Protein backbone atom coordinates (compact mmCIF):
# COMPACT_ATOMS: atom_id res chain seq x y z
CA UNK A 1 0.00 0.00 0.00
CA UNK A 2 1.57 3.32 -1.00
CA UNK A 3 1.42 6.32 1.32
CA UNK A 4 -1.36 8.04 -0.62
CA UNK A 5 -3.58 4.97 -0.34
CA UNK A 6 -2.71 4.61 3.34
CA UNK A 7 -3.72 8.20 4.04
CA UNK A 8 -6.90 7.98 1.95
CA UNK A 9 -7.94 4.70 3.61
CA UNK A 10 -7.38 6.13 7.09
CA UNK A 11 -9.33 9.31 6.31
CA UNK A 12 -12.18 7.17 4.95
CA UNK A 13 -12.56 5.68 8.45
CA UNK A 14 -13.69 9.14 9.58
CA UNK A 15 -16.72 9.07 7.25
CA UNK A 16 -20.11 8.77 8.97
CA UNK A 17 -23.43 7.55 7.64
CA UNK A 18 -25.83 10.01 5.96
CA UNK A 19 -23.39 12.90 5.97
CA UNK A 20 -22.31 15.58 3.51
CA UNK A 21 -18.60 15.54 2.70
CA UNK A 22 -16.34 17.72 0.54
CA UNK A 23 -13.08 16.33 -0.78
CA UNK A 24 -10.33 18.67 -1.94
CA UNK A 25 -8.50 18.27 -5.23
CA UNK A 26 -5.63 15.76 -5.37
CA UNK A 27 -5.01 13.22 -2.61
CA UNK A 28 -8.30 13.94 -0.76
CA UNK A 29 -10.25 12.87 -3.87
CA UNK A 30 -8.95 9.31 -3.35
CA UNK A 31 -10.95 9.02 -0.12
CA UNK A 32 -14.10 8.41 -2.18
CA UNK A 33 -12.59 5.07 -3.28
CA UNK A 34 -12.55 3.70 0.27
CA UNK A 35 -16.00 4.51 1.71
CA UNK A 36 -16.63 1.80 4.33
CA UNK A 37 -19.36 -0.62 3.18
CA UNK A 38 -22.90 0.16 4.33
CA UNK A 39 -22.32 3.91 4.63
CA UNK A 40 -24.36 6.40 2.62
CA UNK A 41 -22.13 9.43 2.08
CA UNK A 42 -23.10 12.46 -0.01
CA UNK A 43 -20.16 14.08 -1.73
CA UNK A 44 -20.33 17.78 -2.52
CA UNK A 45 -18.23 19.49 -5.13
CA UNK A 46 -18.05 23.20 -4.37
CA UNK A 47 -18.64 24.18 -8.00
CA UNK A 48 -22.25 23.29 -7.33
CA UNK A 49 -23.36 19.69 -6.91
CA UNK A 50 -24.11 17.08 -4.29
CA UNK A 51 -24.10 13.46 -5.46
CA UNK A 52 -21.60 13.38 -8.28
CA UNK A 53 -20.22 10.04 -9.41
CA UNK A 54 -17.41 8.50 -11.45
CA UNK A 55 -16.31 9.81 -14.83
CA UNK A 56 -18.76 8.64 -17.50
CA UNK A 57 -17.81 6.45 -20.49
CA UNK A 58 -15.80 8.05 -23.32
CA UNK A 59 -18.06 10.14 -25.54
CA UNK A 60 -20.74 10.48 -22.84
CA UNK A 61 -19.14 13.32 -20.88
CA UNK A 62 -21.42 16.29 -20.18
CA UNK A 63 -19.50 19.54 -20.65
CA UNK A 64 -21.80 21.06 -18.01
CA UNK A 65 -20.75 18.60 -15.31
CA UNK A 66 -17.29 18.55 -13.79
CA UNK A 67 -15.78 18.46 -10.33
CA UNK A 68 -14.04 21.48 -8.78
CA UNK A 69 -10.83 20.51 -10.54
CA UNK A 70 -12.54 20.64 -13.93
CA UNK A 71 -12.55 16.84 -14.44
CA UNK A 72 -15.63 15.21 -15.97
CA UNK A 73 -17.88 13.42 -13.49
CA UNK A 74 -21.34 11.87 -13.61
CA UNK A 75 -24.37 12.34 -11.36
CA UNK A 76 -25.95 9.71 -9.13
CA UNK A 77 -29.74 9.39 -8.73
CA UNK A 78 -30.80 12.02 -6.19
CA UNK A 79 -28.02 14.43 -7.16
CA UNK A 80 -28.72 18.17 -6.72
CA UNK A 81 -27.19 21.13 -8.56
CA UNK A 82 -27.03 24.68 -7.17
CA UNK A 83 -25.29 28.02 -7.63
CA UNK A 84 -22.05 29.08 -5.95
CA UNK A 85 -23.74 31.12 -3.21
CA UNK A 86 -25.82 28.10 -2.18
CA UNK A 87 -22.79 25.83 -2.44
CA UNK A 88 -20.89 27.96 0.06
CA UNK A 89 -23.99 28.50 2.18
CA UNK A 90 -23.89 24.73 2.66
CA UNK A 91 -20.18 24.87 3.49
CA UNK A 92 -20.25 27.93 5.76
CA UNK A 93 -23.67 27.35 7.33
CA UNK A 94 -22.59 24.25 9.24
CA UNK A 95 -24.26 21.81 6.84
CA UNK A 96 -21.04 20.18 5.70
CA UNK A 97 -20.11 17.41 8.12
CA UNK A 98 -16.56 16.96 6.94
CA UNK A 99 -14.00 18.34 4.53
CA UNK A 100 -10.70 16.73 3.58
CA UNK A 101 -7.96 19.08 2.40
CA UNK A 102 -4.29 18.94 1.56
CA UNK A 103 -1.85 20.96 3.65
CA UNK A 104 1.46 22.80 3.33
CA UNK A 105 1.86 23.35 7.09
CA UNK A 106 -0.05 22.79 10.33
CA UNK A 107 1.11 24.51 13.50
CA UNK A 108 0.97 23.41 17.15
CA UNK A 109 -2.48 24.97 17.55
CA UNK A 110 -3.75 22.94 14.64
CA UNK A 111 -3.86 25.91 12.30
CA UNK A 112 -3.55 25.09 8.63
CA UNK A 113 -1.66 26.85 5.85
CA UNK A 114 -2.42 25.50 2.41
CA UNK A 115 -3.08 28.28 -0.06
CA UNK A 116 0.10 30.16 -0.89
CA UNK A 117 3.88 30.32 -0.67
CA UNK A 118 4.77 34.04 -0.76
CA UNK A 119 6.99 34.98 -3.66
CA UNK A 120 6.71 31.56 -5.16
CA UNK A 121 3.23 30.10 -5.53
CA UNK A 122 0.11 32.30 -5.47
CA UNK A 123 -2.69 30.12 -6.73
CA UNK A 124 -5.38 31.69 -4.55
CA UNK A 125 -7.42 30.22 -1.73
CA UNK A 126 -10.33 29.01 -3.87
CA UNK A 127 -12.77 27.52 -1.39
CA UNK A 128 -10.16 26.49 1.19
CA UNK A 129 -10.71 29.35 3.64
CA UNK A 130 -14.46 28.79 3.56
CA UNK A 131 -14.08 25.04 4.02
CA UNK A 132 -11.70 25.32 6.98
CA UNK A 133 -13.79 28.08 8.60
CA UNK A 134 -17.14 26.42 7.97
CA UNK A 135 -17.06 22.62 7.89
CA UNK A 136 -18.00 20.81 11.09
CA UNK A 137 -14.90 18.61 10.87
CA UNK A 138 -11.75 19.51 8.94
CA UNK A 139 -9.34 16.69 8.12
CA UNK A 140 -5.91 17.52 6.73
CA UNK A 141 -4.55 14.74 4.54
CA UNK A 142 -0.88 15.31 3.68
CA UNK A 143 2.60 13.89 3.71
CA UNK A 144 4.29 14.18 7.08
CA UNK A 145 7.33 15.93 5.60
CA UNK A 146 8.25 17.85 2.45
CA UNK A 147 11.79 17.26 1.12
CA UNK A 148 12.77 16.00 4.56
CA UNK A 149 11.43 19.10 6.33
CA UNK A 150 8.57 18.76 8.84
CA UNK A 151 5.19 20.13 7.69
CA UNK A 152 3.85 20.01 11.25
CA UNK A 153 5.56 22.98 12.84
CA UNK A 154 5.68 25.15 15.91
CA UNK A 155 4.60 28.36 14.16
CA UNK A 156 3.26 28.75 10.63
CA UNK A 157 5.78 30.41 8.33
CA UNK A 158 3.21 30.42 5.51
CA UNK A 159 -0.01 32.49 5.47
CA UNK A 160 -2.80 30.80 7.47
CA UNK A 161 -5.90 29.48 5.73
CA UNK A 162 -7.99 30.08 8.85
CA UNK A 163 -7.42 30.78 12.52
CA UNK A 164 -9.76 27.91 13.32
CA UNK A 165 -7.85 24.73 14.26
CA UNK A 166 -8.41 21.65 12.11
CA UNK A 167 -10.02 18.54 13.57
CA UNK A 168 -7.49 15.89 12.60
CA UNK A 169 -4.20 15.53 10.70
CA UNK A 170 -3.67 12.30 8.80
CA UNK A 171 -0.24 11.56 7.27
CA UNK A 172 1.53 8.45 6.05
CA UNK A 173 3.19 8.25 9.49
CA UNK A 174 0.52 9.20 11.99
CA UNK A 175 -2.87 10.50 13.02
CA UNK A 176 -2.60 13.64 15.12
CA UNK A 177 -5.39 15.52 16.88
CA UNK A 178 -5.10 19.21 17.76
CA UNK A 179 -6.48 19.77 21.28
CA UNK A 180 -6.50 22.53 23.87
CA UNK A 181 -3.37 21.03 25.38
CA UNK A 182 -1.45 20.59 22.14
CA UNK A 183 -1.10 18.17 19.25
CA UNK A 184 -1.91 14.69 20.49
CA UNK A 185 -0.47 11.64 18.72
CA UNK A 186 -3.44 9.31 18.37
CA UNK A 187 -2.15 6.63 16.00
CA UNK A 188 1.00 5.63 14.18
CA UNK A 189 1.13 3.92 10.81
CA UNK A 190 1.89 0.18 10.87
CA UNK A 191 5.58 -0.41 11.67
CA UNK A 192 6.24 3.29 12.34
CA UNK A 193 7.67 3.99 15.80
CA UNK A 194 6.47 6.87 17.97
CA UNK A 195 10.04 8.17 18.07
CA UNK A 196 10.18 8.35 14.27
CA UNK A 197 6.97 10.39 14.18
CA UNK A 198 8.30 12.79 16.81
CA UNK A 199 11.58 13.14 14.93
CA UNK A 200 9.75 13.99 11.71
CA UNK A 201 7.58 16.58 13.45
CA UNK A 202 8.67 20.18 13.93
CA UNK A 203 6.88 20.76 17.22
CA UNK A 204 6.16 18.92 20.45
CA UNK A 205 3.65 16.08 20.23
CA UNK A 206 1.65 14.98 23.25
CA UNK A 207 2.14 11.19 23.37
CA UNK A 208 -0.47 9.35 25.44
CA UNK A 209 0.10 5.84 26.76
CA UNK A 210 -2.37 4.29 24.38
CA UNK A 211 -1.18 5.37 20.93
CA UNK A 212 -3.03 3.12 18.48
CA UNK A 213 -2.16 1.76 15.07
CA UNK A 214 -3.72 3.47 12.06
CA UNK A 215 -6.85 1.61 11.05
CA UNK A 216 -7.25 1.46 7.29
CA UNK A 217 -10.42 -0.58 6.82
CA UNK A 218 -10.74 -3.62 4.57
Amino acid at each position, binding site marked *: MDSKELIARRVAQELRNNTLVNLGIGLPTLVANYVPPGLEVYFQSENGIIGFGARPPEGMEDVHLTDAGGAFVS*ARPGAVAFD*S*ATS*FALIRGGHLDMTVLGGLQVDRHGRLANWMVPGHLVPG*MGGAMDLVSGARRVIVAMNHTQKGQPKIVDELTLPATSLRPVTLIVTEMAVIEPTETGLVLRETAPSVMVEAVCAATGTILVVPNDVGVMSVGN
Partner: protein
Amino acid sequence: MRSAITPAAAANLVPDGATVMVGGFMGVGSPHRIIKALVVRGVRNLTLIANDTARPGVGVGKLIDAGCVSRVIASHIGTNPETQRRMLSAEIEVELVPQGTLAERIRAGGAGLGGVLTATGLGTMAGEGRMVVQVDGRDFLIEPALKADIALVAARSADYIGNLVYSLTARNFNPLMAMAATTTIAEANEVVPLGVLSPDMIHTPGVLIDYLVERPQLI
Protein backbone atom coordinates in the same frame (compact mmCIF):
# COMPACT_ATOMS: atom_id res chain seq x y z
CA MET B 1 -40.26 39.87 -25.83
CA ARG B 2 -36.84 40.98 -27.04
CA SER B 3 -34.76 40.69 -30.19
CA ALA B 4 -31.69 38.49 -30.24
CA ILE B 5 -28.31 40.09 -30.92
CA THR B 6 -25.17 38.58 -32.43
CA PRO B 7 -22.14 37.73 -30.28
CA ALA B 8 -20.29 40.55 -32.06
CA ALA B 9 -23.03 43.02 -31.12
CA ALA B 10 -22.79 41.76 -27.54
CA ALA B 11 -19.03 42.35 -27.54
CA ASN B 12 -19.60 45.91 -28.77
CA LEU B 13 -21.68 46.59 -25.65
CA VAL B 14 -18.59 46.03 -23.50
CA PRO B 15 -16.49 49.22 -23.49
CA ASP B 16 -12.74 49.24 -22.90
CA GLY B 17 -12.03 49.71 -19.21
CA ALA B 18 -15.31 48.17 -18.07
CA THR B 19 -15.74 46.05 -14.97
CA VAL B 20 -17.10 42.76 -16.26
CA MET B 21 -18.40 39.74 -14.38
CA VAL B 22 -18.16 36.52 -16.37
CA GLY B 23 -19.90 33.32 -15.29
CA GLY B 24 -18.16 29.97 -15.27
CA PHE B 25 -15.99 27.71 -13.15
CA MET B 26 -12.83 26.53 -14.86
CA GLY B 27 -14.56 27.44 -18.13
CA VAL B 28 -17.63 25.31 -17.37
CA GLY B 29 -20.71 27.48 -17.82
CA SER B 30 -18.90 30.43 -19.38
CA PRO B 31 -20.43 32.44 -22.25
CA HIS B 32 -17.98 31.08 -24.83
CA ARG B 33 -19.42 32.82 -27.90
CA ILE B 34 -19.37 36.26 -26.29
CA ILE B 35 -15.82 35.66 -25.00
CA LYS B 36 -14.65 34.78 -28.51
CA ALA B 37 -16.29 37.93 -29.87
CA LEU B 38 -14.59 40.04 -27.20
CA VAL B 39 -11.22 38.70 -28.27
CA VAL B 40 -12.02 39.45 -31.92
CA ARG B 41 -13.17 42.96 -30.99
CA GLY B 42 -9.87 43.42 -29.10
CA VAL B 43 -11.39 44.86 -25.93
CA ARG B 44 -8.79 46.29 -23.55
CA ASN B 45 -8.22 47.14 -19.91
CA LEU B 46 -11.08 45.08 -18.46
CA THR B 47 -11.49 44.43 -14.75
CA LEU B 48 -12.54 40.79 -14.81
CA ILE B 49 -14.59 39.40 -11.92
CA ALA B 50 -14.80 35.62 -12.16
CA ASN B 51 -14.31 32.60 -9.94
CA ASP B 52 -11.03 31.72 -11.70
CA THR B 53 -9.20 32.36 -14.95
CA ALA B 54 -9.58 28.75 -16.18
CA ARG B 55 -6.63 27.64 -18.33
CA PRO B 56 -4.87 29.26 -21.27
CA GLY B 57 -7.18 29.00 -24.30
CA VAL B 58 -10.19 27.99 -22.17
CA GLY B 59 -13.14 30.19 -21.10
CA VAL B 60 -12.02 33.55 -19.71
CA GLY B 61 -8.45 32.29 -20.16
CA LYS B 62 -8.87 33.50 -23.77
CA LEU B 63 -9.32 37.06 -22.49
CA ILE B 64 -6.12 36.75 -20.44
CA ASP B 65 -4.19 35.33 -23.43
CA ALA B 66 -5.36 38.15 -25.70
CA GLY B 67 -4.31 40.89 -23.27
CA CYS B 68 -7.88 42.13 -22.71
CA VAL B 69 -7.60 42.17 -18.93
CA SER B 70 -5.69 44.53 -16.64
CA ARG B 71 -7.24 43.53 -13.31
CA VAL B 72 -8.68 40.27 -11.98
CA ILE B 73 -10.87 39.67 -8.93
CA ALA B 74 -11.08 35.89 -8.45
CA SER B 75 -10.78 33.12 -5.89
CA HIS B 76 -8.16 31.12 -7.77
CA ILE B 77 -5.67 31.65 -10.59
CA GLY B 78 -3.52 28.56 -9.94
CA THR B 79 -4.68 26.69 -13.04
CA ASN B 80 -3.64 29.46 -15.43
CA PRO B 81 0.14 30.04 -15.68
CA GLU B 82 -0.49 32.88 -18.13
CA THR B 83 -2.43 34.82 -15.47
CA GLN B 84 0.38 34.20 -13.01
CA ARG B 85 3.04 35.27 -15.52
CA ARG B 86 1.20 38.51 -16.26
CA MET B 87 0.64 39.10 -12.54
CA LEU B 88 4.38 38.73 -11.81
CA SER B 89 5.24 41.06 -14.71
CA ALA B 90 2.70 43.58 -13.35
CA GLU B 91 0.60 43.50 -16.53
CA ILE B 92 -2.34 42.24 -14.50
CA GLU B 93 -3.29 43.20 -10.96
CA VAL B 94 -4.89 40.32 -9.05
CA GLU B 95 -7.21 40.50 -6.03
CA LEU B 96 -7.81 37.10 -4.47
CA VAL B 97 -11.07 36.55 -2.57
CA PRO B 98 -12.25 33.37 -0.82
CA GLN B 99 -14.72 31.64 -3.12
CA GLY B 100 -17.66 31.73 -0.72
CA THR B 101 -16.99 35.37 0.08
CA LEU B 102 -16.77 36.18 -3.64
CA ALA B 103 -20.14 34.51 -4.21
CA GLU B 104 -21.75 36.37 -1.29
CA ARG B 105 -20.25 39.73 -2.30
CA ILE B 106 -21.65 39.37 -5.80
CA ARG B 107 -24.99 38.18 -4.46
CA ALA B 108 -25.04 41.18 -2.09
CA GLY B 109 -24.38 43.51 -5.03
CA GLY B 110 -27.33 42.08 -6.90
CA ALA B 111 -29.61 41.98 -3.86
CA GLY B 112 -29.07 45.61 -2.84
CA LEU B 113 -27.20 44.71 0.35
CA GLY B 114 -24.22 46.81 1.40
CA GLY B 115 -22.34 43.64 2.23
CA VAL B 116 -22.33 40.60 4.47
CA LEU B 117 -20.69 39.53 7.73
CA THR B 118 -18.50 36.46 7.44
CA ALA B 119 -15.98 34.60 9.58
CA THR B 120 -14.12 33.34 6.51
CA GLY B 121 -10.76 35.08 6.23
CA LEU B 122 -10.74 36.44 9.82
CA GLY B 123 -7.15 36.89 10.94
CA THR B 124 -5.75 35.91 7.54
CA MET B 125 -4.41 37.90 4.59
CA ALA B 126 -7.92 37.79 3.10
CA GLY B 127 -9.18 39.85 6.03
CA GLU B 128 -6.60 42.64 5.76
CA GLY B 129 -8.17 46.08 5.40
CA ARG B 130 -11.63 44.84 6.34
CA MET B 131 -13.75 46.21 9.20
CA VAL B 132 -14.43 43.69 11.99
CA VAL B 133 -17.71 43.76 13.92
CA GLN B 134 -19.06 41.65 16.75
CA VAL B 135 -22.48 40.03 16.57
CA ASP B 136 -23.61 37.89 19.50
CA GLY B 137 -20.07 37.91 20.85
CA ARG B 138 -18.50 36.54 17.66
CA ASP B 139 -16.16 38.46 15.34
CA PHE B 140 -17.02 38.85 11.66
CA LEU B 141 -15.44 40.61 8.71
CA ILE B 142 -17.60 43.09 6.84
CA GLU B 143 -17.30 42.06 3.21
CA PRO B 144 -18.66 44.78 0.91
CA ALA B 145 -21.00 44.15 -2.01
CA LEU B 146 -19.46 43.78 -5.46
CA LYS B 147 -21.10 45.13 -8.62
CA ALA B 148 -20.11 45.42 -12.26
CA ASP B 149 -20.85 47.42 -15.36
CA ILE B 150 -21.54 44.31 -17.41
CA ALA B 151 -22.37 40.70 -16.57
CA LEU B 152 -21.86 38.03 -19.22
CA VAL B 153 -23.67 34.81 -18.40
CA ALA B 154 -24.30 31.46 -20.06
CA ALA B 155 -27.31 29.17 -19.73
CA ARG B 156 -28.57 25.91 -21.21
CA SER B 157 -31.97 27.33 -22.21
CA ALA B 158 -33.51 30.75 -22.64
CA ASP B 159 -37.01 31.76 -23.68
CA TYR B 160 -38.08 34.82 -25.65
CA ILE B 161 -38.11 37.12 -22.62
CA GLY B 162 -34.73 35.94 -21.36
CA ASN B 163 -35.78 33.55 -18.61
CA LEU B 164 -32.80 31.24 -18.07
CA VAL B 165 -32.27 27.63 -17.03
CA TYR B 166 -28.77 26.37 -16.25
CA SER B 167 -27.42 22.84 -16.33
CA LEU B 168 -25.65 21.05 -13.45
CA THR B 169 -22.29 22.58 -12.47
CA ALA B 170 -22.50 25.09 -15.33
CA ARG B 171 -24.81 27.16 -13.09
CA ASN B 172 -22.12 28.28 -10.60
CA PHE B 173 -21.74 32.11 -10.55
CA ASN B 174 -24.08 32.83 -13.47
CA PRO B 175 -27.33 33.50 -11.55
CA LEU B 176 -25.49 35.69 -9.03
CA MET B 177 -23.76 37.77 -11.69
CA ALA B 178 -26.96 38.15 -13.73
CA MET B 179 -28.29 40.28 -10.84
CA ALA B 180 -25.19 42.28 -10.02
CA ALA B 181 -24.43 44.36 -13.11
CA THR B 182 -25.84 47.47 -14.71
CA THR B 183 -26.16 45.57 -18.00
CA THR B 184 -26.54 41.81 -18.26
CA ILE B 185 -26.00 39.89 -21.50
CA ALA B 186 -26.88 36.20 -21.73
CA GLU B 187 -26.15 33.47 -24.23
CA ALA B 188 -27.87 30.08 -24.20
CA ASN B 189 -27.40 26.78 -25.99
CA GLU B 190 -31.03 26.94 -27.08
CA VAL B 191 -33.86 29.45 -27.19
CA VAL B 192 -37.30 27.96 -26.62
CA PRO B 193 -40.84 29.40 -26.86
CA LEU B 194 -42.45 31.27 -23.99
CA GLY B 195 -44.17 28.83 -21.65
CA VAL B 196 -41.87 25.89 -22.40
CA LEU B 197 -39.84 26.56 -19.26
CA SER B 198 -41.90 25.92 -16.12
CA PRO B 199 -42.02 28.86 -13.65
CA ASP B 200 -40.59 26.55 -10.97
CA MET B 201 -37.55 25.46 -12.98
CA ILE B 202 -36.39 28.88 -14.19
CA HIS B 203 -33.23 29.92 -12.35
CA THR B 204 -32.89 33.52 -13.58
CA PRO B 205 -35.92 35.75 -14.30
CA GLY B 206 -35.83 37.30 -17.76
CA VAL B 207 -36.39 40.78 -16.32
CA LEU B 208 -32.72 40.68 -15.27
CA ILE B 209 -31.46 40.09 -18.82
CA ASP B 210 -30.91 43.22 -20.91
CA TYR B 211 -29.66 41.46 -24.04
CA LEU B 212 -30.00 37.89 -25.27
CA VAL B 213 -27.55 36.52 -27.84
CA GLU B 214 -29.05 34.65 -30.80
CA ARG B 215 -29.16 30.85 -30.65
CA PRO B 216 -26.00 29.03 -31.79
CA GLN B 217 -25.93 27.60 -35.33
CA LEU B 218 -26.32 23.88 -34.68
CA ILE B 219 -27.82 22.85 -38.04
